[in-house]
């Protein structure tokens, strides 16, 4: 679950409204102060606004996110514009004509702008940008070792990796001036090259367990957290499952708080019983030479008396 109202939401909504007004001005063929904006300039300004909004949401420049976001924002804008124009023509008693719908001036431009801002905010920010399905598809169906190799060796320039990082980027905006609550997606990378279990699954952790360890200004909206084995197992080797909040889905941290790398410890007695035995199966290991030595004939040297 995601928070709908935050500092970022408000700021970006304002930016989007401004962009929509520019759009209206362009479509009306007029300007705000007597200056006529050429359509190309207006379009560029609009695109620049969208780019700024996407940057604000992502926290840093990411080509994949920019492209995805621009396409989505323009698509939403066209939909809303079309609906507005059609409404205007119907109100005037005309039958909507497709060409006129696309080319005619907007109806009730302020209302259109506001609708655009709200719809774009919800759809693009909460649905389009966090998409990281390409990575999931690539990882599915490969061996655990290959998964580790994939996570470890994934090149930063890889567009698939960038798609995943676009979601995480929202949380890593170190230069953002907004102290707002942001969703933290599950990190895609394993910290060490540890063989992941063959079995895939999730561990359920009640929110109360996590909430009591959260920093004061962090929030948790979900009643329980689902944490995949792929996150838990690499940490189990350390004898504890300590997870950075950035690895949890459903936990909201103030931007900038990640500088301190807050983390929580999941109690082993809670999570281990949820993991099936087969997930703990160890891969075949090369036995040390001393284990293969066959020098001693005795099995019992000392016996209890």
């Amino acid at each position, binding site marked *: 679950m995601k928070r709908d109202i935050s500092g970022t939401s408000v700021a970006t909504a304002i930016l989007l409204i401004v962009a929509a007004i520019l759009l209206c001005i362009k479509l009306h063929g007029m300007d705000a102060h007597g200056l006529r904006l050429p359509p190309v300039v207006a379009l560029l300004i609009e695109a620049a606004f969208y780019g700024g909004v996407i940057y604000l949401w992502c926290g840093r420049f990411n080509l994949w996110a920019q492209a995805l976001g621009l396409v989505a924002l323009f698509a939403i804008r066209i939909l809303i514009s079309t609906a507005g124009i059609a409404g205007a023509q119907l109100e005037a008693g005309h039958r909507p004509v497709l060409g006129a719908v696309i080319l005619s001036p907007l109806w009730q431009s302020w209302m259109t702008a506001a609708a655009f801002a709200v719809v774009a905010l919800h759809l693009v920010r909460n649905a389009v940008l966090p998409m990281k399905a390409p990575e999931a598809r690539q990882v599915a169906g490969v061996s655990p070792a290959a998964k580790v190799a994939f996570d470890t060796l994934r090149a930063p320039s890889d567009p698939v990796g960038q798609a995943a990082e676009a979601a995480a980027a929202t949380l890593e905006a170190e230069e953002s001036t907004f102290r707002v609550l942001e969703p933290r997606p599950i990190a895609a990378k394993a910290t060490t090259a540890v063989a992941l279990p063959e079995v895939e699954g999730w561990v359920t952790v009640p929110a109360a367990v996590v909430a009591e360890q959260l920093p004061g200004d962090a929030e948790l909206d979900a009643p329980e957290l689902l944490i995949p084995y792929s996150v838990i197992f690499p940490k*189990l*080797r*350390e*004898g*504890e499952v300590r997870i950075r909040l950035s690895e949890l889905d459903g936990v909201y941290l103030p931007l900038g708080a990640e500088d301190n790398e807050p983390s929580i410890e999941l*109690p*082993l*007695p809670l999570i*281990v*019983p949820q993991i099936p*035995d087969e997930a*703990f199966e*160890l891969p075949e*290991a090369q*036995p*040390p*030479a*001393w*284990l293969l*030595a*066959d*020098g*001693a*004939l*005795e*099995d*019992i*040297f*000392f*016996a*209890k*008396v």
Partner: protein
Amino acid sequence: MASVNYALKEICCKIVYYGPGMCGKTTNLQYIHQHTNTERRGNLVSLATPGERTLFFDFLPLEAPRLHGFETKFQVYTVPGQVMYNSTRKLVLRAVDGVIFVADSQYEKMRENVESFRNMKENLASYSCSLETTPYVMQYNKRDLDSAAPLRLMQYVLNPRQVPHFEAMAIEGAGVFESLNAICKLVLGNLRTKQQRGAL
């Protein structure tokens, strides 16, 4: 390093119980001391604090039955588990022939187990040794406690190499001699291999 005295027909090996604090290393040694034929063991030397924490180390000399005409002696040590005594641990680990790593099975001790195991590897490395060349077995102690973690977790966390492991309740003696006999067998086997290679 084990010493072989061909003139006296005597082999002497050093076994060390390693593990985190309060995991039961001294309890192992005490049980062995109490339940071994008095003719085949020396006195248990133990230097402990009033709180029964090992201050320096415990030492118990044991004598195994003759093997191929050789008198086989084992010097069994424990290390102090407390973090601050690493210098002592390192010293005790010097010239070790085999290690019994005693892990505390309780969930809340898992992290300490991991740190202690890592510390053991580091200390071995300081003598240019490693677990590739030094036989060791795992003993999962305190299996009787309600808070004991399942064996599958202990194995996953502490024994990815899948060396011999033993579940134990050292205070009752369960798994104590099994662990000791296993490491003695591995140590002597390793010794014989080295001898055949001319490394001794």
